[in-house]
């Protein structure tokens, strides 16, 4: 991966945000890592709205992935709330805060630990507005670093987006680039209902341009429920999200050299998901491959494929997801669960009989 351009973004070692200032002295665009984009989005939201607060373990020191860096210094401990190791109460208290008029942004470390707060996410946050008959709403964002984190093994590597997509009341967002990360997090914080915001752990250091001061570009990138066509093509449509985007774009580039034209759609949000964009593309190319890092069985790829299969039986359909095994620690075992560009290429080659 190293330093090559992937999906319009460049991956490299972390560095401070590198502002490109125009002659007027107004920042036009900056190059940010996903972690920086995340911290910046939260800071901008907190500046804009005093009801935005953030809470979670260790965020005062910037969080495990530096995605909260600098916030405590600017906003103080009342709004950047370091918490005890109490996942149930981190989530439950956030629900209470939201019911009382705040907009909490909740950090749960990794999606695997959200399992310690599932009642609060599903039975409380997601359902409160409905169960209360609309008396109150729960505007909060649940940030869940997800996916395989090199060598972190089965309890720190899960992808559980299909769970959240199944739960009424939850919006599910999974950005794949620094721009999407910034823009979608801003929108998520503005949402009046709970948003599950899954951030891939291996994307934190991915860098790319974020036109912070181009409001229309940010607004455009921040539309929840709208997919992003990362690459156009005509032979086959690949639908993916989160870190899958990198692999799929690389795969499409490789296949282009062999005369196969692959369209790559980054779903960006799983609920609502951009059914229309996927169907339009799949009908045009005739083939849809859904690619995700999560376990394939009962993964969200099944929903995408089933939806298309019901309405458009003429589209040929395939999924590429992980086998139904826990993520292993050792490299050769972990690799079995990992998505790679090669795997995407092979799946397509096999399908097209190349």
């Amino acid at each position, binding site marked *: 991966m190293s330093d090559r351009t992937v999906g319009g973004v460049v991956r490299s070692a972390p560095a401070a945000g590198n502002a490109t200032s125009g002659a007027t002295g107004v920042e036009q665009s900056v190059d940010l890592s996903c972690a920086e984009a995340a911290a910046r989005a939260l800071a901008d939201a907190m500046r804009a709205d005093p009801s935005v607060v953030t809470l979670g373990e260790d965020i005062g020191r910037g969080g495990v992935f530096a995605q909260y860096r600098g916030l405590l210094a600017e906003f103080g401990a009342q709004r950047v709330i370091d918490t005890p190791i109490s996942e149930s*109460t981190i989530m*439950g208290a956030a629900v*209470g*805060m939201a019911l*009382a008029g705040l907009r909490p942004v909740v950090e749960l470390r990794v999606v695997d630990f959200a399992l310690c707060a599932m009642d609060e996410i599903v039975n409380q946050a997601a359902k409160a507005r409905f*169960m209360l*008959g609309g008396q*109150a709403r729960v505007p909060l964002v649940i940030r869940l670093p997800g996916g395989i984190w090199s060598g972190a093994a089965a309890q720190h590597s899960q992808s559980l987006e299909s769970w959240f997509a199944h739960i009424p009341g939850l919006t599910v967002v999974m950005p794949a680039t620094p721009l999407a990360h910034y823009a979608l997090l801003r929108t998520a914080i503005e949402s009046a209902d709970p948003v599950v915001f899954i951030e891939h752990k291996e994307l934190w250091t991915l860098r790319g341009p974020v036109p912070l001061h181009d409001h229309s570009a940010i607004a455009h990138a921040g539309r929840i429920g709208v997919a992003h066509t990362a690459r156009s093509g005509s032979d086959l449509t690949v639908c993916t999200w989160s870190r899958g985007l990198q692999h799929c774009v690389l795969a499409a580039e490789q296949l282009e050299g062999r005369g196969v034209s692959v369209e790559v759609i980054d779903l960006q949000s799983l609920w609502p998901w951009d059914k229309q964009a996927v169907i339009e593309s799949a009908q045009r190319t005739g083939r849809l491959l859904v690619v995700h890092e999560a376990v394939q069985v009962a993964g969200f790829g099944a929903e995408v494929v089933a939806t298309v299969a019901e309405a458009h039986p003429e589209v040929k359909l395939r999924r590429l997801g992980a086998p139904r095994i826990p993520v292993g620690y050792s490299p050769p075992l972990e690799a079995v669960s990992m998505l790679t560009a090669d795997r995407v290429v092979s799946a397509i080659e096999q399908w097209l009989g190349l």
Partner: protein
Amino acid sequence: MSTEQLLELYRVMLRIRAFEDLADQASQGGTSAFGQATSAAPAPVRGPLHLSHGQEAVAVGVCASLHADDAITSTHRGHGHCIAKGADPWRMFAELLGRADGYNAGKGGSMHIADFSVGMLGSNGVVAAGIPIAVGAAQAFKLRGESRIVACFFGDGAINRGPFLEGLNWAQVFQLPVLFVCEDNRYSATTRSADMTAGEGAAARARALGIATQVCDGNDVIAVARAAAELASQVRAGGGPRLLHAITYRFKGHVSVDPASYRDPRELDRALEHDPIELTERVLMERGCVASAHASKPDSRIGSESAARAAATGPGPSEIASLDEIKRHVREQIEHAMQRALASPWPDAAAAFEDVQDSGGGVWR
């Protein structure tokens, strides 16, 4: 506490009791559980209905110490808390009946009644789930510099769930304005809580977190009100959370259809001798109130117009009605509330798709 104040608490307790008596009746045959089958004709009140008969003094005594803009969180057994905080019985009935005028528009039922207009942030179907929610609401109040406090009700069984520890620890660490109230009715569903609870219970656990506590007779509304007032004022003064451990007893089964045959009947008999309403009546009579006026002419104040206001504000000392009259008034009011609720329309099926979420609710957008 003045006699007028006590009469007011008495009235609220009566209101809760009358409300739950009617709800109980309307629920019989409504849930299949505890060996009871659903009746052929569906009951007007469906689903599990948890009654707080015998526990009214806790709800009433605690809410007496709260201001209108203070908040409470409640449990699956929340009718008393709702009424004590000021919710309107007719809209509560409408909710139990699943009607459009219900507080939750018929979406929640008994276990989810809330009335945000009086600071009642919600009953909850999950044991102990209200604790972190209360704590978070209090943190919002504190962050905004408001003087509001939150009273958080939970049962004696709830103290064995993790969120009890987490929530209390959190409230103490952040010095939040929460008055925790353990309604110790001795049972966790069909199980004696004592058999499942190590140590001395809620108060001891709170003290281990540095939270000051009081233990009181939860059937003595004066004792509850006194303890709650003291603790609430400490909380309001910024002293961090406090916990009130109120010892009471659940007269009925766990849910309305539960015959509670797992209890020694004598245990119930003994408990009934300490009915919080009767205890209050005795005190009121000691203070000069009469049980019945033996007056054949009906009090003009019983008229439907002014009844609600009279019950809400209480009569002046010179015009104190007999306790029987008060009871009758309250019961009539509650029956009236039920009638009004029964006249409320069913929600539209389309409402099932409303208030789910804005971005892509039930219907594909």
